[in-house]
């Protein structure tokens, strides 16, 4: 058994190690070391907890057993998961953090003596408030992440689910959460605690269903943030510095990512959260739309254009992930490079279903990270490039965002693909993108549409290049 002061010092050390873990991510070279710091911090926190409780009897064995089972499951998932499924995985992990926070809060509520918080029915007021916050946010994180997971996995439709009075209902539930928390604190009634949990689960569910599939980058970041605040709430209850530090770090990290994602779409956070985007009246937009001529080509044309180019820019999007085309794409780029063609990749902040989604996929396909550029790094280069190959992206290239104030995506920063000499656009059909907006790029003279599956088309192009 070690003293409370000493264990507090160790918890502080693990908190600092967690800060260093995030700091390491400032560049790929230091990132692996950062991850090691994170693991070390976690090991210290767990060991110190065992030592400070000092109970190594039967219960300890069971703790180890559960730790081991969880560890095996986690390891298995970590090595089995496909990189394209990363958004689902992260959403799933968020739900586990949320649920764990809820369970710890329940446990503390039922047995406050173990946590030094008073006795059942007479829990310290401050602790009860902190516990309720942890439990409420944890429950919202859990049910919200489950919905996000189902939408990303495709089990649930990615289109927004809206109904009349939705916002009013949500507002009422949020108010009742506050009221229930207040009553819980004044009466300490276990029933109220269960009711509070139930309505928190419900609101998490209701908050996410109106948000469409392509807004998932914001949702995942937001749930990331929530899981942090839930941990911080529990951290205050347990008076544990490591947990408070981590909660604050994760909370602000998720909040910043949500902000970056919203900015990438030029939409306010509330606009995304209130949902319904993409379910807008598409008919009014397509009204009066005549059949405009489109130039379409095949892999041979595409290969010809690329061969005669001196620089090519690749614009990947969610479609690349769906078609699992990243390896074929790298092969194509290798072939181009052999012909002394300069190739770079341009990534829009909201490409894919989570922040950094495209970068991970390209890294998986062995694309060196110094060939991959962010929007503002590369946007001026489109004018000087000969060919741009848009694979699985759509709305992020739509010039309407700059020219048409009526467009739902007006004001969104886009990749200036249209400035390039020729645009190759791989797409399965002419259907509009997620925002329900027709892309005028399809009808430009310098655009060649390649109607095919992204992976198949890329493979065809490789054949024609050789």
């Amino acid at each position, binding site marked *: 058994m070690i003293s409370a002061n000493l264990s507090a010092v160790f918890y502080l050390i*693990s*908190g600092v190690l967690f*800060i260093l873990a*995030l*700091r390491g991510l*400032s560049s*790929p070279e230091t990132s*692996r070391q950062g*991850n090691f710091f*994170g*693991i070390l*911090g*976690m090991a210290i*926190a767990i060991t110190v*907890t065992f030592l400070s*409780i000092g109970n190594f009897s*039967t219960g300890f064995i069971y*703790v180890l057993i*559960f730790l081991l089972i*969880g560890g095996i*499951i*986690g390891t298995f998932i*970590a090595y089995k*998961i496909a990189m394209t499924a*990363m958004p689902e*995985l992260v959403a799933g*992990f968020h739900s*586990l953090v949320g649920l*764990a*926070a809820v*369970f*710890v809060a329940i*446990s503390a509520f*039922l*047995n406050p003596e173990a*946590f030094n918080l008073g006795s059942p029915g007479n829990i310290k007021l401050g602790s009860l408030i902190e516990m309720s916050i942890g439990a409420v946010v944890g429950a919202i994180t859990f049910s919200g992440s489950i919905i996000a997971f189902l939408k990303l996995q495709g089990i649930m439709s990615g289109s927004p689910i809206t109904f009349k009075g939705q916002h009013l209902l949500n507002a009422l539930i949020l108010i009742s959460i506050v009221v229930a928390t207040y009553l819980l604190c004044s009466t300490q009634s276990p029933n109220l605690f269960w009711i509070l949990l139930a309505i928190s689960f419900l609101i998490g569910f209701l908050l996410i269903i109106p948000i469409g599939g392509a807004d998932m980058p914001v949702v995942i970041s937001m749930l*990331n943030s929530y*899981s942090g605040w839930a*941990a911080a709430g529990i951290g*205050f209850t*347990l008076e*544990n510095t490591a947990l*408070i530090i981590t*909660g604050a770090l*994760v909370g*602000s*990290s*998720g909040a*910043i*990512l949500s902000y970056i994602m919203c900015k990438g779409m030029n939409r306010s956070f509330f606009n995304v959260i209130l949902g319904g985007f993409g379910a807008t009246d598409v008919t009014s937009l397509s009204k009066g739309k005549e059949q405009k001529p489109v130039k379409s080509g095949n892999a041979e044309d595409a290969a010809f254009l690329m061969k005669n180019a001196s620089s090519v820019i690749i614009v990947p999007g969610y479609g690349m992930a769906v078609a699992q085309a990243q390896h074929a794409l790298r092969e194509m780029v290798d072939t181009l490079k052999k012909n002394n063609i300069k190739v770079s990749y341009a990534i829009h902040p909201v490409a894919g279903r989570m*922040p*950094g*989604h495209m*970068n*991970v996929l390209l*890294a*998986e396909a*062995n694309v*060196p990270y110094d060939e991959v550029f*962010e929007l503002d790094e590369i946007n001026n280069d489109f004018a000087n490039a000969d060919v741009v190959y848009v694979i699985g992206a759509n709305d992020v290239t739509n010039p309407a965002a700059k020219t048409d104030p009526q467009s739902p995506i007006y004001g969104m920063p886009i990749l200036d693909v249209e400035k390039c000499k020729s645009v190759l656009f791989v797409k399965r059909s002419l259907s509009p993108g997620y925002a329900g907006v027709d892309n005028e790029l399809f009808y430009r003279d310098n655009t060649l549409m390649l109607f095919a599956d992204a992976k198949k088309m890329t493979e065809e192009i490789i054949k024609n290049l050789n």
Partner: protein
Amino acid sequence: MDIDPFIFRFSIFILTIFIGYYVVWSVTPSLHTPLMSVTNAISSVIIVGAIIAGLAGNDESVFNTSSIFGFLAILLAAINIFGGFLVTQRMLAMYKKKKKDK
């Protein structure tokens, strides 16, 4: 008059939010996905609370309602810790620089 220890913890909390703000802005956008998976892993330090809850039962009855929730929380947090750190490791191992092959 003594200061409530809560205030100290609250100070740590607020200051860490600021640290988080500056640290996360310095994360390169290409590593945002590993950032999410690693924050996921570290927020599972909530396992500390789960262990306390799990060990709260006495030796005659290891399992009571409260400790069962603790054990379940240990299981969930452990999945996250191992899954989160290892998947981050796996992703980070893929980020390579261009080979100087000219």
